[in-house]
């Protein structure tokens, strides 16, 4: 034990003289952990909330009975099953809209507490612990989570009023309830949803018995939870975020790895001396491992705390984009388990292990008697570059394989990762080759030295440069994709949102009245009612929209692909058009037959594909009359109206007054566009923030590498100084070297970023969202990012160089003699 103590004492004394190095390791681990745990915090908060949302009615029973196409069904089926001895519990669900500060839609779940399967609990309250009198009585209770309550702008004990003027039961704050959900008794729910005698699903306790035939004809067993839809829809979003987090993690580990390696290098002599003094290899290694553990713990704790703050800062935008994109509710505040903190620290320890394992292994192989030779950089550099190039080649092959044969999001990300990693590994070789070429052109001794010395610095700074390359390429890639998407999206919105006023009546009955009244308005030039049915198609949620035959569609509905006579066939009720993502999901192409509605409805020919950005559900366009013939329950869901500009506001007011419709139900085109673009920009706010943070981390990596190089550099610079090169000049030359290296890296990062952008729009987007975007390049943006990259490296090198310029001659002198 005392041997270990002595060893630790000797090892740790190193950090007194190399504070920056110690700081680098902690910073690396800290940033890596912070960004990774921050992203994980966001993701786990969201997943947690989805799980809570789906587990609102959770119990041992997982399976449930639903009607085909997820329609509501008659309550009589419940009674029938009950009288056959089936322990089923009815649930009715729907959405309620509220005219809060922002129009708000919540998921209303009506449950029946008496029949809930035993051991079920609702938002943490056991079924048998319900205050039945209060819950099912009058006015009853409406359970809401804290977030929803806040969004509704009401207090517990009050009664919220929907935008249709319906009064909810008394609100009861239920802390464990997932956001965006209101739970009431089934009776209250049916009344609020205008679904008397209707049910959405039946919870099943016993999953083993076969369904009676009479029931099986009407209901189907659905294993698993309802949230799988939400999980699936948002999966890609979270995967994207995770990928960014992972990138940041890797960049952070680069820093730690570099600093740990340097610290070992500098302590080779010390370790040899310790061992010569009789400290066993095991003890020395234990000392190193222990030291690494201390760093990991420090970095981990700092990182997790920072990650928490980061996540808390990003959460509002994150939650807003999930709500906007997927209708998924995520709480606006973080509630993280102790487990999360532990995992965060564990990640840091793992990172430290990854970053430091090679160093400890090297220490293990350190020969006891070998002389402390100066590093034979020239000899070592060649094989090192070759090894990396080989590895890069293998990774590029993997990337190619992923591109050729991959067909899932994980392979798409593997493609990205392999591409990025390969580029990073190739970077030193490429830079070395470039500098080699440059060196041959140099005659002037100082320029010769400038290039040759830059080349010699490569192993030391290459990790930081790799980090810069990765971060910058990611910025370019994500930036191009985001900008490209923004452009595509707004262009698409302009075309798609062609009507002046959009009316969403409360229900079909009212919609018919609204339509009839609108038809009498002479100012209106076009009146387009659309009918809607929601169903699931091959397990995917799909909206089927029935439209009337109007020439307006032909000119304004942007199609990606279409067959001849497409609109005529659609009007004739023999053809459908599909959103791009649905077509991809179902694997159908133009001309294929598709069974949109379950038989006996006839199959239809696919005659057109259109973009439907931002819609997580599939979308199908059919003829309205056909849809209404096939499905009596098709709802007249929306009416869009075109009229001269001066008539819009008066018509809106008239509609609102006449039919008691609030602002969320009569929406002008401009408002709708604003909502859509808001959702869009929020979606990418978190991405952009993470991106710039990663670039910042890369900058710090460079800064730290240069700082730790400082001492080493002195040995390289002193001879030049002794040969008559001024200190100021040396500082400028050093700055020039850093700038040259980082500029070359930036130059390489730009094409890599463009390649990345292409992968994102043409591979990842297709897998993640189902749509392919055109690749746009924005020279201005590229220039900005390039300047940002150079600026980052300039900032990173400023301090170390300033230190170098301030070096006293005495310090340089020390390089020549140990005698004073």
């Amino acid at each position, binding site marked *: 034990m005392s041997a270990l103590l002595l060893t630790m004492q000797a090892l740790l004394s190193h950090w007194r003289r190399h504070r920056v190095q110690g700081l680098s390791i902690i910073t690396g681990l800290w940033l890596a952990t912070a960004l990774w745990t921050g992203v994980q915090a966001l993701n786990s908060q969201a997943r947690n909330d989805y799980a809570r949302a789906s587990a609102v009615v959770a119990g041992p029973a997982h399976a449930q009975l639903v009607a085909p196409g997820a329609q509501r069904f008659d309550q009589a089926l419940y009674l029938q099953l009950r009288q056959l001895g089936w322990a089923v519990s009815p649930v009715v669900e729907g959405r309620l809209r509220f005219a809060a500060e922002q129009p708000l839609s919540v998921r209303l779940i009506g449950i029946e507490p008496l029949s809930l399967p035993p051991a079920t609990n609702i938002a943490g309250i056991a079924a048998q612990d319900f205050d039945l009198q209060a819950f099912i009585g009058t006015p009853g209770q409406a359970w809401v989570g804290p977030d929803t309550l806040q969004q509704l702008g009401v207090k517990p004990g009050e009664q919220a009023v929907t935008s249709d003027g319906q009064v909810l039961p008394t609100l009861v704050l239920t802390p464990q309830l997932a956001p965006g959900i209101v739970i009431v008794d089934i009776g209250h729910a049916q009344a609020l949803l205008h679904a008397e005698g209707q049910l959405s699903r039946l919870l099943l306790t016993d999953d083993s018995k076969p369904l009676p035939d009479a029931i099986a004809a009407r209901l189907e067993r659905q294993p698993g939870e309802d949230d799988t839809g939400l999980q699936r829809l948002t999966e890609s979003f979270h995967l994207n975020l995770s990928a960014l987090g992972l990138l940041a993690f890797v960049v952070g580990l680069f820093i730690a790895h570099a600093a740990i390696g340097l610290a070992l290098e500098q302590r080779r002599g010390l370790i040899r001396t310790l061992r010569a003094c009789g400290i066993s290899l095991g003890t020395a290694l234990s000392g190193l491992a222990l030291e690494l553990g201390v760093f990991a713990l420090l970095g981990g704790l700092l990182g997790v705390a920072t990650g928490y703050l980061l996540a808390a800062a990003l959460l509002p935008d994150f939650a807003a984009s999930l709500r906007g994109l997927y209708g998924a509710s995520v709480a606006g505040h973080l509630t993280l388990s102790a487990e999360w903190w532990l995992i965060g620290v564990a990640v840091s320890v793992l990172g430290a292990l990854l970053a430091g394992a090679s160093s400890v292994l090297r220490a293990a192989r350190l020969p006891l008697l070998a002389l402390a030779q100066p590093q034979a*950089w020239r000899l070592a550099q060649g094989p090192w570059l070759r090894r990396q190039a080989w590895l890069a080649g293998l990774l590029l092959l993997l990337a190619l394989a992923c591109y050729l044969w991959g067909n899932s999001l994980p392979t798409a990300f593997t493609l990205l990762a392999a591409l990025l990693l390969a580029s990073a590994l190739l970077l030193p070789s490429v830079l070395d080759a470039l500098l080699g070429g440059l060196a041959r052109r140099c005659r002037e001794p100082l320029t010769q030295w400038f290039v040759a010395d830059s080349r010699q610095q490569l192993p030391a700074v290459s990790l930081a440069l790799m980090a810069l390359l990765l971060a910058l390429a990611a910025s370019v890639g994500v930036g191009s994709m985001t900008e490209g998407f923004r452009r595509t999206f707004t262009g698409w919105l302009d075309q798609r949102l062609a009507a002046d006023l959009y009316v969403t009546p409360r229900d079909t009955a009212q919609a018919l009245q609204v339509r009839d009244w609108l038809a009498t308005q002479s100012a209106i030039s076009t009146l387009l009612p659309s009918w809607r049915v929601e169903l699931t198609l091959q397990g995917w949620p799909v909206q089927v929209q029935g439209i009337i035959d109007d020439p307006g569609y032909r000119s304004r509905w942007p199609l990606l692909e279409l067959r001849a006579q497409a609109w005529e066939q659609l009007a004739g009720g023999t053809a459908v058009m599909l959103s791009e993502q649905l077509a991809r999901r179902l694997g159908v192409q133009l001309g294929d037959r598709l069974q949109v509605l379950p038989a006996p409805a006839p199959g239809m020919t696919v005659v057109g594909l259109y973009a439907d950005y931002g819609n997580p559900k599939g979308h199908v366009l059919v003829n309205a009359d056909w849809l209404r013939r096939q499905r009596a329950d098709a709802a007249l869901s929306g009416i869009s109206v075109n009229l001269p500009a001066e008539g819009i506001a008066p018509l809106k007011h008239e509609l609102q007054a006449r039919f008691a419709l609030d602002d969320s139900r009569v929406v002008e085109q401009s408002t709708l566009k604003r909502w859509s673009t808001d959702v869009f920009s929020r979606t990418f706010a978190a991405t952009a923030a993470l991106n710039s943070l990663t670039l910042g981390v890369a900058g710090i990596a460079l800064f730290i590498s240069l700082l730790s190089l400082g001492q080493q550099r002195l040995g390289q610079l002193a001879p030049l100084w002794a*040969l008559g090169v001024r200190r100021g000049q040396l500082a400028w030359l050093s700055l020039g070297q850093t700038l040259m290296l980082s500029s070359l890296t930036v130059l390489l990062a730009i094409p890599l970023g463009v390649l990345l952008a292409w992968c994102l729009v043409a591979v990842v987007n297709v897998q993640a969202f189902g749509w392919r975007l055109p690749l746009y390049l924005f020279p201005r943006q590229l220039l900005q990012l390039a300047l940002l990259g150079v600026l980052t490296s300039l900032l990173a090198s400023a301090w170390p160089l300033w230190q170098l310029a301030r070096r006293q001659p005495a310090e340089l002198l020390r390089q020549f003699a140990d005698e004073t």
Partner: protein
Amino acid sequence: MLVVEQLCKSFTTAQGTLPVLQGVDLRLARGSSLALMGESGSGKSTLLHLLAGLDRADSGRILIDDEPLDGRSEAALARWRRQGIGLVFQQYNLISSLDVAANLAFQARLAGRFEARWQDYLTRQLGLADLLQRYPEQLSGGQQQRVAIGRALAARPALLLADEPTGSLDEASSDQVLELMLQLVAEAGSSVLMVTHSQRLALRLEQRCLLQDGRVQDGAGR
């Protein structure tokens, strides 16, 4: 050409001020050679550093061809190092990123006094002709020191300052290298001031002086 008068230099250490040079007087005529001897810590290297303009004296004067060295600007001192002197250290101090050829030519090119013939001659004399494409780390200690000597003499400096140039070498190669150096110094027409603690080596030079207690004890330098 070189006159040192009452040169003083002290260093500030944790234990207080440590006087190293306490009034050193020294003279060196053009083309002559002087061995500066003394115990470890006697201030030999410090004196050399002051002469090279790598450090500044506290008091006293250094005259180069009657021009004072102290009081010159940083840039002027750099010029002095670049053009006026050649430096050879115990620790070779080659530029590790450049090959032997580039190292040899470095200072001459920097000083703008590169002569291809002289350079070739030096290279051959130093036995480096086959090593030009190598890098310093690929050379033995003796070879490295020969490169350093070649680099220092390539610009034909007026003064060669050598700090234990053979301190890291064994006796045989040490003699060989020194012999070569003195020969080439003579051919270059430079004066030489060499710091050494070896009596044997010192005897090869024209003059010797002993640095003790911060002063030159032997009258040889005067």
